[in-house]
């Protein structure tokens, strides 16, 4: 039972990290990008390729994961967001990010293969470590560190405060001379790097698998919606709750209904508190 809980927290951590990435991009563009779940996927694949495939040291794999994520984030902003935001049709960004997500998933599938491939050990540890295995605590530690880091970034650094100003009222921020376009680009790169890092940390848990993106997009979104759009603490809570719920349900009922349970959780929360547990009422995207 304990191992189920720990595994659940670990997968929940990946959902939470995805939700955090959603938040970072949403704060500056008011867009929920379908590509978000593909950032950890790219991180895992890049890390596995560099370390296991090319035989390079782990920190190069780390850089590759973050770099690939950041690049894809920039690509998303450039191709799927920037031109589309200028038009008045509200939901074009959903289509463009959906298109880009499909393309990246298929491209990785064609290049990397469609089977999940193992991710290398990052820290020397034998495989009998049980609950203390790094494949569990690496993602958990990272998700928490990400949330704390983001909160510190927003409250203590100048750049972070600009992000906050832009997320509260982009129009007013622009009027005060804040370079909102550049901040948006930076936020997508940041979200990309963080997502890639999360995928790297969780690689041993999820394996390097091209189809991870879609399920992470969905489950990361569920974590986000449950925890409350715009709240980083909420993203953590939502992610861990979802992971634990899935793990417990698997433990008690067998693992066949993961998605059903996840959506059930989402529906229950949305019916009772539509803005999520820690969300604020105005932050709903229309």
């Amino acid at each position, binding site marked *: 039972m304990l191992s189920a809980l720990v595994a659940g927290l670990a997968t929940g951590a990946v959902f939470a990290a995805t939700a955090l990435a959603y938040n970072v991009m949403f704060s500056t563009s008011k867009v*929920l990008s379908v590509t978000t779940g593909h950032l950890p996927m790219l991180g895992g694949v890049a890390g596995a390729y560099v370390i296991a495939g090319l035989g390079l040291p782990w920190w190069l794999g780390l850089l590759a994961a973050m770099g690939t994520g950041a690049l894809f984030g920039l690509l998303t902003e450039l*191709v*799927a967001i920037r*031109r*589309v935001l200028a*038009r008045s*049709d*509200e*939901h*074009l960004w*959903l*289509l*463009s990010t*959906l*298109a*880009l*997500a*499909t*393309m990246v*998933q*298929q*491209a990785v599938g*064609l290049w990397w293969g469609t089977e999940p491939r193992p991710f290398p050990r990052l820290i020397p540890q034998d495989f009998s470590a049980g609950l203390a295995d790094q494949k569990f605590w690496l993602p958990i530690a990272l998700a928490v560190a990400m949330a704390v880091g983001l909160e510190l970034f927003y409250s203590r650094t100048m750049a972070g405060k600009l992000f906050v100003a832009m997320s509260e009222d982009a129009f007013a921020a622009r009027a005060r001379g804040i370079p909102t376009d550049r901040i948006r680009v930076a936020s997508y790169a940041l979200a990309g790097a963080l997502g890639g890092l999360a995928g790297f940390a969780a690689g041993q848990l999820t394996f390097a698998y091209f189809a991870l993106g*879609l*399920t992470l*997009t*969905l489950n990361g*979104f*569920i974590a986000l*919606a449950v925890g409350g759009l715009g709240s980083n603490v909420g993203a953590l809570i939502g992610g861990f709750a979802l992971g634990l719920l899935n793990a417990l349900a698997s433990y008690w009922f067998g693992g*066949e*209904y*993961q*998605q*059903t349970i*996840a*959506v059930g959780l*989402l*529906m229950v929360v*949305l*019916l009772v508190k539509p803005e999520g547990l820690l969300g604020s009422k105005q932050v*709903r*995207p*229309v």
Partner: protein
Amino acid sequence: MSPEHRRLGLAALLALGAATLPFWAADQYQLHLATLIAAYWVLIGGLNLVVGYAGQLSIGHVGLLSIGAYGFAILAGKAGLHPALAVAASGALCGIAGLLLGLPSLRLPGFYFAMATMAVALIVGEVVLAQGELTGGGVGLPVPGFPAPFDSPAGFYWLTAAAAAAVTWLTWNVARRMQGRGLIAIRDSVVTAQAVGVPVLGAKLRAFVFSGVCAGVGGSLFAALQSYITPDTFHFELSLFFFVCIIIGGRGGILGPFLGVVVLTALPELVSPLAKLGNFFYGLLLLAVVLVVPEGIGRVFELVAARLKPRPVESVPVQPDLPRLARALRSNR
């Protein structure tokens, strides 16, 4: 010839071609492909009202296709129902599924709704795998065919084409009347839809349930065509395919999405490098359309035609005809 007449003329030509297809198709394979397109269109024609007219981004319709297909396979196969009855029951079942899915999720904002539909598609996949006794699990189910005269490829083609024609007629009726305008208002300006009295959730729900019934019938015909279905047949990318056909063909039209289905189904068959690229190609096409011609490729033709035969839009000042206005208002009560 006005654009409206041109479109009707083209549609009539297509109908004629479709009706006589078994006679001029080059081989059985082409006939099979045409039947597949027709079965897809039964679903996509209905989905068109939801996505193309009401603007609801439902990306999970493969789940409803799956329910329709498995429903038919189980009812006509295991339960031994007459195939006609099984199709009807399957359609009704999917209509109910549409209602259950639509009621909670159609009130949600766009992205939330899209995710909810995607989740349902994945859930249906899970349930199909889990309920192995009923659905055959990963192994799948054989699907019975239809009795004579629909048991031959040509006969089954005509049955499917008739269903496709029926869906076209139903959606065409809705699209060109007040109901269609209401859906377009929901898509382009919810505030306006409310101001003129459109019951937004109710209208979306009706279109969604209708698309469910179409998915059920389309799924049944699709299953019968495949003659054996497994969970792998209903992968998520199929949903994307349905969706992309409509967006690329152009929202707010019927001919456009229909041509979209034809082209996107036939293209990978005819151009084999494209078949390997598969879904990457659909994604690329969708991205290109969204960035360059968001109103769909149909609109491109209209724009090109306008460019070739420019009719300058004369700036005529607004000049009210007050007596005429007064007369129109007098018939107010």
